[in-house]
């Protein structure tokens, strides 16, 4: 599939830049220094989250690219998406999925910083065979020279998107009220711009959706779904509590789309750029839909354990940290009976019978 016209017009590129800026600014406005401290409070959760975000996700993305036999530019794009840090929307989804919001925020924070180191390494590692294929393709067409992953540019773009985050954090430190307004406004603007971009992209390139091979769709949908699924199972395997399982699952599947846009726009040239961008747009669209359904599902299955968690937390809040909530025998299901977050807090020791 070839792009005969440019996917984005200059005006769209400006809008996209504005969107990236405002979303990252909003992300910063929602963060405090305390959030970085929270990272230290959940070392186990963060570690498992780290493993699934930078271990599982890039591997799945690579696997999909190989398994679906994707054209090199798309393959590189999906691997790029797989290597991204978590996005702020995952915090909102974690909240509604009755997951641990604190862990979700901590994971987003940690992964955004870790991405500076991890992304270049992972990209280098997973994209090797695709870059050489792409170089061969370009030389065959007689247009380009050797294609290499622009590692320096990627790091530069990552740092660039962290600037508005820092600005947002600065605002938050100055005025909480303004930060809240900025956060909401940014979220609202982000939605409007993305709806506009998708709308115009579809309107201008009406044939594009039909032309796009089915593998591309499968890749765009599945990379998120695999993240949800294995993020959940991995944290379950390590016997984390259900609220952490749900948070890690969503955090793994939901990547920071705006960073992908920024990197693609700033580091890659045509004709590769449009193809990569198209996959990123598809991923961003489908991830909202899939994570909505996953959230609704988690919300339902997590109702009971979350209510117990909540009730126990409030008992400790009001009756003191030493208070132990003794639920009747057989009330707690086996799965969460000895879960530290579900019937007693870490400071308490329950005698096992």
């Amino acid at each position: 599939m070839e792009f005969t016209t440019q996917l984005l017009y200059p005006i769209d590129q400006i809008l996209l830049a504005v969107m990236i800026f405002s979303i990252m600014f909003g992300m910063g406005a929602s963060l405090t220094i305390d959030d970085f401290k929270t990272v230290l409070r959940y070392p186990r959760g963060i570690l498992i989250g780290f493993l699934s975000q930078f271990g599982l996700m890039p591997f799945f993305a690579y696997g999909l690219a190989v398994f679906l036999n994707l054209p090199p530019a798309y393959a590189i794009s999906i691997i790029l998406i797989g290597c991204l840090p978590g996005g702020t929307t995952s915090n909102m989804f974690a909240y509604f999925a009755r997951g641990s919001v604190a862990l979700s925020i901590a994971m987003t924070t940690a992964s955004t910083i870790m991405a500076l180191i991890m992304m270049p390494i992972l990209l280098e590692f997973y994209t090797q065979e695709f870059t050489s294929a792409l170089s061969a393709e370009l030389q065959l067409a007689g247009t380009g020279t050797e294609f290499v992953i622009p590692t320096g540019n990627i790091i530069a773009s990552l740092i660039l998107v962290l600037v508005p985050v820092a600005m947002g954090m600065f605002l938050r430190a100055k005025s909480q009220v303004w930060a809240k307004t900025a956060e909401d406004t940014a979220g609202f603007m982000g939605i409007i711009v993305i709806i506009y971009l998708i709308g115009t992209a579809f309107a201008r390139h009406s044939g594009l959706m039909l032309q796009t091979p089915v593998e591309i769709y499968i890749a765009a949908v599945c990379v998120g779904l695999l993240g949800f699924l294995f993020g959940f199972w991995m944290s379950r395997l390590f016997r984390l509590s259900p609220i952490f399982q749900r948070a890690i699952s969503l955090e793994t599947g939901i990547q920071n789309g705006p960073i992908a846009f920024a990197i693609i726009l700033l580091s890659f040239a045509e004709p590769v750029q449009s193809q990569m961008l198209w996959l990123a747009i598809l991923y961003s669209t489908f991830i909202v839909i899939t994570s909505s359904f996953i959230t609704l599902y988690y919300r339902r299955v997590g109702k009971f354990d979350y209510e117990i968690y909540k009730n126990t937390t409030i008992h400790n809040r009001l009756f003191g940290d030493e208070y132990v909530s003794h639920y009747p025998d057989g009330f707690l299901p086996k799965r969460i009976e000895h879960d530290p977050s579900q019937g007693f807090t870490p400071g308490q020791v329950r005698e096992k019978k």
Partner: protein
Amino acid sequence: MENRIVAENMAQLFKRAAEQYGDLPAFATRIEELQWEPVSFREMYNRGLNLATGLIELGVEANEHVGLFGDNRFEWILTDCGIQLCGAADVPRGRDITDTELVYIINHAEIKIAFAETRQLAERILSLKPELPTLKTIILHEEADLYDDNLLHISTVESTGKNLRADGDRRAEQRMEAINPDDLFTLIYTSGTTGKPKGVMLSHANIMSQMKVIPIELSCTDRVLSILPVWHIFERVFEVYTISCGVCTYYTSIRTLGDDLKNVEPTFMGSAPRLWESLHHRILKKVKESHPMRQLLFHTAYFLSKQYKSSLYFLFDKRLKIERQSMLKRILLSPFYALRWVVVTPFYGFFNVAVLEPVRLSAGGSLKATVSGGGALPNEIDRFFNFIGIPVLEGYGMTETSPVIAVRTDRELVIGTVGPVVADTDVRIVDIESGKTLFPDENHPENGRGLRGEIHVKGPQVMQGYYKEKELTEKTIQNGWLNTGDLGMITFNNCLKILGRTKSTIVLLSGENLEPEPIEMRLTQSPLIEHCMIVGQDKKHIGALIVPDLDGLRGKGIEVANLNDAVVNNEAKKLIRAEIKKTISLYNGFKRHELIQDFTLLPENFRNGVELTSLYKMKRHIIQDKYADEIESMFKHESTGVK
């Protein structure tokens, strides 16, 4: 996960709750903002047994009436537990009880032992002692240093009982065994506005039947915030229900409600319309003060939610259906509503999450639902909260039916009604004039749905009668059917809608009762007023519909040819306004809530046989229906003069 306990009587309920829920907190009292003291189900039962034994030692007999005068606090429920466990019944009232009521109730119920919450209340009762021949002992909840043989602190009674039980005293258990389902568990005196209070006799079977039929699911993971007076049956039934479900009740107060909502994060609450009014006001004020961007977001979210919810209400047949609607029309319209739902849903999803959730958090984010009772919830507020996603379940009941007759549930949430009638309960709609049953009656189309009449109830929750008021009881309950005195209808989707009262008592929004007749009588004595009807059910204040007396007006020198002339005559209005102000005043012995804030002159006289009965009594509901618009507009704008 539901595991509510349905016991044979209150005493068994306390016992089984202790066995089943053990160390879980049952009640919690606020000491500081983040320091609360829990009492477990087991502890409550054990202390209840001690108190019961202490009471038996003081001479409390089985089925004796024990006074319980005080408001929400742990000692209240402990006292209730003690009284139930020794097989007696309590006679509850709040601290705001008047001296006259105290004397009447203590003497009428032949109370020998009474609990009083505060020192002040105890001193008031002591000062009335000469008028209270039966009263022997007062037991205090609060610490005070004026104890003697007949004035004890609750802990003294408890420790007496505790020592006796340590020596093997098991009289409380024997009393518990002997309780009959038909024995009274409480005798609640309702404050009549005219005449004397009436003692409503509620049995163990009455209250336990409610545990079976309350259609709200609660479990040990829920938290209930208690703000309404516990001696009122509406809050009381929830207190009993929370024990049945193993839920912890947290006592709050108006002063600390805001903080407590935030800290306790209740999942359920019994509430009164007033609470929702003030919350509604607070939310809107907050929205108005916020950044324009946030205002826009809120209004968009509210609009979308309205579209989303009303589409669903249509599709699932949950709209208020007073009139019969054709099936065909519904089927034809359904695709449009379905389409609207599909279009709105994704946007609603986003805005619900991003904008409405923070609003819900400000109202205590964990609330699954709340039941509003004790008065009608204004439609606008009802809709507001349901649209922003806090389901307010309006219920209907009365002390005489311990109390629930009907309540909306999540599944049967039809705004504008009080939901379907609860299980095991029958409701009849009876024609007021002829006394014939309108619903259910197969001779009427749709079995009589949509016809208005008086609501009669039959079921296990109906009281045993009014204490020592045989005649009144027989008048109120006939063949097991209790006449509620309320006007209502069954809608076409089987919900009960309350339309007003057939009895003339007006209940204001604030919960104050007033009888319109004395005011009307006073007003019609004026030469300027021919007829007059007081309205104001569920409003903030009362208003009057007035038919002016033409001769009287002419006598004052105002030239009016007919009633239509008088209505538009400003001189006449001014004169009547002055007359009302003069007649219905605090000076003339009327209470503040009885003052008329606004009035409307009617252009037509009341006619015999239409608006008036053959005995010249006003048919209130007919007049109310005829002048519904006038009444509405009277309460719409601010009061225009008479103060």
